């Protein structure tokens, strides 16, 4: 396969050593826009160096942000600046670098706290990503809470990372895993949810937004019903955090909220578990090691306070710094403005794709994020993906780590286009033209 050369390389500014300074460097998006003005598409796109490259001879049209989004220059610069001017281990040294590194790491935590409106930084645990956050809750919280006869309630549209950890913990405790069905349009069957929620339910774990269909779940209603039975709720926010106008854990009143930085314009290998402090405080640590202890003798260990109790070992410090910069970036753009931009793209793409003969949308929930799953009669999604790739258009094809949902639709796979802040109407047109090409080839 021939490799295209990046048309634009990353420009790094000279790095000045600035003690403890984690501001992310100037970009043109620093200038605050009026809150109700639309997003400046050209400016945003210019912030993402990778979008300047060619793929198979064409300008890259990246429609796979639900799998992983690209990173803007301020995030790349924040990571580079941290690595080249401040790096040391955190929470350990008396020397200046260690203090700066600790400060940078903890500032990122405070940014995340503010971003999701948690009450305290003690409720913000840095993890590797959504998957690790859910596993932490499964092993530290659920394992101790569950026993034979108990039930964990999830939905049919979950990502495998919000299914498998519960299967593992149910197998270990004798509890039962139940999945609320979905309707043909991809919305949750609310009546089924309310009837499946019972005295046996010990935990509800739900996607805030479906990665395969884009469905936005009415989580506030679902949480209220669970809380009426004193059942705690975990939300998998992987697809929500960068795309909804607001994610406020206090307003949602959720008990746990999990998300990954790499789906919100930050680096891979870092993510967040938000946990209600009273729950986190009562939970045992799930990994032992350095940083999570207060004192250790061979006989016993006193655990550190929150959130350090859940952060054994040297953390992903530069990842946290990058996440903090991604939070800043999103806040500077304005989350409502971003969400409005993506909703416009969703509407445009939905109506444009409807004009493609023999194309079927999978999932048509009334409330959706900018994720579109589709099939074309007589063409396997894999072939759609290859044809689009030859045109420089990146979409995902397959089961999207949601095999139970695919089985419900009787589909081995779909093609999925997911939109982000840097996509525009021109990307939708390129997609539609690419799909015409698919029709020509396989029609």
């Amino acid at each position: 396969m021939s490799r295209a050369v990046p048309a634009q390389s990353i420009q790094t500014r000279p790095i000045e050593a600035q003690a403890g300074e984690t501001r992310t460097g100037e970009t043109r998006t620093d200038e605050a826009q009026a809150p109700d003005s639309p997003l400046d598409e050209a400016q945003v796109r210019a912030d993402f160096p990778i979008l300047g490259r060619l793929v198979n001879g064409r300008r890259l049209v990246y429609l796979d942000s639900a799998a992983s989004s690209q990173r803007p220059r301020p995030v790349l610069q924040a990571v580079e600046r941290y690595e080249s001017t401040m790096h040391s281990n955190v929470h350990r040294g008396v020397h200046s670098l260690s203090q700066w590194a600790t400060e940078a790491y903890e500032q990122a935590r405070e940014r995340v706290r503010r971003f999701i409106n948690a009450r305290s930084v003690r409720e913000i645990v840095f993890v590797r990503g959504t998957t690790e956050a859910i596993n932490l809750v499964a092993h530290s919280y659920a394992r101790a809470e569950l026993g034979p006869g108990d039930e964990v309630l999830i939905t049919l549209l979950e990502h495998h990372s919000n299914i498998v950890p519960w299967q593992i913990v149910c197998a270990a405790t004798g509890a039962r895993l139940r999945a609320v069905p979905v309707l043909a349009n991809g919305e949750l069957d609310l009546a089924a949810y309310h009837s499946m929620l019972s005295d046996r339910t010990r935990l509800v774990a739900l996607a805030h937004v479906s990665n395969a269909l884009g469905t936005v779940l009415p989580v506030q209603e679902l949480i209220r019903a669970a809380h009426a039975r004193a059942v705690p709720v975990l939300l998998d926010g992987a697809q929500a955090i960068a795309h909804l106008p607001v994610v406020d854990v206090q307003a949602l009143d959720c008990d746990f909220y999990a998300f990954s930085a790499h789906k919100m314009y930050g680096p891979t290998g870092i993510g967040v578990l938000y946990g209600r402090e009273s729950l986190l405080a009562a939970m045992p640590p799930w990994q032992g090691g350095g940083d999570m202890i207060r004192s250790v003798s061979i006989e016993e260990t006193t655990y550190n306070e929150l959130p350090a109790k859940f952060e054994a070992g040297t953390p992903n410090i530069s990842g946290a710094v990058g996440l903090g910069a991604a939070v800043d970036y999103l806040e500077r753009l304005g989350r409502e403005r971003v969400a409005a931009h993506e909703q416009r793209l969703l509407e445009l793409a939905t109506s444009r794709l409807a004009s493609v003969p023999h194309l079927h949308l999978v999932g048509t929930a009334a409330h959706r994020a900018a994720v579109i799953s589709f099939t074309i009669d007589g063409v396997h999604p894999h072939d759609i993906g290859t044809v689009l790739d030859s045109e420089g258009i990146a979409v995902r094809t397959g089961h999207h780590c949601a095999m139970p949902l695919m089985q419900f639709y009787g589909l081995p796979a779909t093609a999925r286009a997911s939109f982000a802040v840097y996509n525009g109407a021109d990307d939708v047109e390129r997609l539609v033209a690419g799909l015409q090409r698919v029709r020509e080839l396989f029609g």
Partner: protein
Amino acid sequence: MDLKDLYREVVLDHNRSPRNFGRLEPADAEAQGHNPLCGDRLHLTLRLQDERLSDLRFEGQGCAISVASASLMSEAVKGRSRAEIAQLYDEVHAMLTGRLSHPPAHLGKLAALAGVAEFPVRVKCASLCWHTLNAALERANAPVSTE
């Protein structure tokens, strides 16, 4: 990369109207092939006569490459001995993974799949049918139970 190299006319034709599609009943052996990554599924049945593959059928769902590959394979292996099939598979595999600069003439229509070598993620699609055939042939090897 040139799409026309992957989706040659022969490939598109065998995808549109796969040969030897269906199921043999009764069969001497059968096997299931599954590529979990793309959800491709293949069910293959075959009959042997005098240690030669006298007939085979396949059914299932898959991308154009996996369907066309199974269809082309089904034509190419019919009537052949196990040893001949093993040799053919080695050559096809070498072609799919780009280890042959020019597919030898005796590969016949199978050479239409040579373009797959330029699309590494698709090699698995094209080889699924061969793995399934090997599994079925191995099963046909098993000593016949007298019960």
